[in-house]
């Protein structure tokens, strides 16, 4: 299981490193799918709702959203460069630092014995931070959306700690919300692309003091 989490963290680093939008999207998507499978791994006894949640997650995060973003990308027909505010190497280093810091923080915080071994907490924190880095260090709207996605993934990862304590209804609601959120973001990205004819957020600074 830790392997999977490690993989997820790896993907967030990939997202940080990749210089072209499609690959960023792909990284986010794969990460989403991996997380989707995690509940099945965690859950010792089989429960149909868990399966439903998992499948939902995988479909939404792995296919729906990436396709949405790709559509926007295609519509935008802009160059697919990421154009970072912060270079790839620094971002990577930051990401690495984030992972270490997250691990440290994870050790700081007391964990229940059954979670002591797992990478859940550090993994989630690390992913969250990577998401933040993407949000802050990229100019293209789409890459920011991916950042947001990765952020959400990190939180979802953390949510798995509580998977068998929080009622699944809440889980479902949360999942639904995240989906709709990214969906709405996708729409807005689409509209922005039409209005401004670009997805470069550096152009979106008409609202200022």
């Amino acid at each position, binding site marked *: 299981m830790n392997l999977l989490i490690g993989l997820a963290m790896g993907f967030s680093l990939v997202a940080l490193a990749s210089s072209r939008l499609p690959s960023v999207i792909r990284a986010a998507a794969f990460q989403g799918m991996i997380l989707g499978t995690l509940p099945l791994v965690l859950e010792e006894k089989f429960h149909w709702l868990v399966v439903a949640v998992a499948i939902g997650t995988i479909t939404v995060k792995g296919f729906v959203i990436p396709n949405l973003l790709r559509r926007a990308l295609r519509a935008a027909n802009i160059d697919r460069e990421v154009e970072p505010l912060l270079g790839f190497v620094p971002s990577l280093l930051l990401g690495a630092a984030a992972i270490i810091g997250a691990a440290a923080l994870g050790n700081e915080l007391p964990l229940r014995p059954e979670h002591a071994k797992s990478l859940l907490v550090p993994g989630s924190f690390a992913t969250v931070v990577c998401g933040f880095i993407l*949000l802050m260090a990229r100019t293209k709207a789409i890459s920011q959306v991916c950042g947001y996605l990765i952020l959400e993934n990190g939180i979802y990862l953390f949510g798995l700690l509580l998977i068998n304590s929080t009622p699944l209804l809440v889980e479902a609601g949360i999942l639904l919300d995240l989906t709709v959120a990214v969906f709405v973001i996708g729409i807005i990205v689409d509209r922005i692309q039409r209005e401004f004819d670009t997805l470069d957020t550096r152009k979106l600074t008409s609202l200022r*003091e």
Partner: protein
Amino acid sequence: MTPGWLLLIAGGGLVAGIFSAFKSPRVWLAATLTGAIASFSAAVWMLASGATWNWQPQFVIGGEALHLQLDGISAFFLILLSVLGGAATLYSSEYWTDKAHPASAPSGRAWWNGMLLNMGFVLLCANGLHFLIVWEIFTVCAYFLVTRERQRPAARAAGWLYLAASHVAMIFLFAFFALLAARTESWELGPMREHAELAPLFWLALVGFGIKAGIFPLHIWLPSAHANAPSHVSAIMSGMAIKMGIYGIVRFTGWLPTPDSAGWVVAALGVVSAVLGVAFALGQHDLKRLLAYHSVENIGIILIGLGFAMIAASHGNAAWGQLALAGALLHVWNHGLFKALLFLGAGSVLHATGTREMSRLGGLWRAMPWTASLFALGATAIAGLPPLNGFVSEWLVYLGLFDAVAAHGHAAFAAILAAVALGLTGALALACFVKVCGVVFLGLPRTEIAEHVHECGWRMRLPMLVLGAACVTIGLAPILFWPALATASAAWQPALTSANALSSAPLVTLGAFHLALATLVILAAIFLWQRVRQNGVSRAGTWDCGYAAPTPRMQYTAGSFAGIITGWFDWILRPQRHGHLPKGNFPAHADFTEHTPETVLENIVEPASSLVLRVSTAVRRLQHGRVQSYIFYLLLGLAALAILAVMGGAK
């Protein structure tokens, strides 16, 4: 017919005035005057009876039960409010007509009544919360009255300055009343001198009320506001509104304990305001602005008296304290009366000529004899000259100071300084009003606008007559008003008041002397007049020292008149002089202009505010529209929170 009913009528009249203000000016006039008369009689009743009217209905406003109280001090100020309010109301009915100001007159009447009403409530409220409410409402009403002529940028700027300053005052009063309520666990006001821990609150009150009163460094809003408001508004603002600040200080120094240094500080502020106020007044060329600075001066005189009363109260209630207090209180009335008279006079000059610039006026006495003579009366009074009221109050303050000196006590040296400063102030005020009367009313018209002028009608004249009569009455028969002073000072601090105070201030003799002086003066004038008639009069031009073609514009101007004295005060007045002096044997073009700015405003307040603005613009750059950094701010906030939470909090 008890005071309660009278006050009810007064309030009813003013409220009715508000509602009739838009539709029918006549009804408004009638209602407002009724209100003024009713409140006047109520106040007189209370002062005469010396009792205190209390009204505590179980009527809750903003969570506090209403409590109205009319005691000696309130009644004392309420009388002034009624007189000035009534006079200025009548005046405005001709001065600010619907015909001349269709846009601003009707709403102006409503604001006017609102202001009068709330001033009255300020005097009546015995509950901190309600005091704060009506205080602020009256301030806001005054703002809308000052900015009647919104289209004039000057008026807007003046109004803005006034509003800003008043809000600073408001903030201090917020703190004052909230602290008071927090310490005493009740909003109820009343004598609480035994709570020694309340003494420091005095400083908050001093600043809060001092801004409204126009004490020297805090007076920045006053000149422009008084100059740019319609004259009846200037009259009430200068005559009454700033006295509300004095009322606040008197009221709460009477009810609350004060720090030992309080009296000294108040007296010192008084000295500074008095001398510098008149110094600034001398530098002005704008008639109403000049009068406004004289308000600062007279507030200073009041504060000198009050300050020494406080010193006396904190040093075993020395007898001279009561004289100083009586002088201060009487000067509250006097300044209200003659300053209102002067502003109304200035108003009718403005009404007739359309300018406040003294250097463009002159020789107005021919066309407007009433205004001229009444203005001269007011000038004599404000210069503190016998036999008028201004002298009586200053004389009482002087007596207090001299007794303090003679007593060789703590206060003696301070009293010496104050007395000399008072003397200086008197002489300076005399100089200033010689200048005003001479330049505006005497001599020849300097410009053609000063030639074609008209005397004001009776509705503008009558109020001035009433005020002038009041000045004369207080001057000639001061003893009539002593009971009021005694009641008020007893309400301020019973311990300070002694029955035999009157013996140390022989008002009867003074009144008699004034009466004799007045009669003799008039007789002598008539006598000399007759004599001149008998000897025969021949007319000729003014002696021009042989210069062939004198023109009215060659008369001495206000600026050159005040030149010597303003020269002495250059260090604070900072006058800006521009011009070309005549050069060579055949000097061609030569000109000279002088302008005295508001030093405190332009050299202290404005730099400070521009600094704040620079900071603000610098901060606003952070909102530059890049969402990435917005998210970065979010993270920063998170980090700050984490640090805050962990430090001290976690184990």
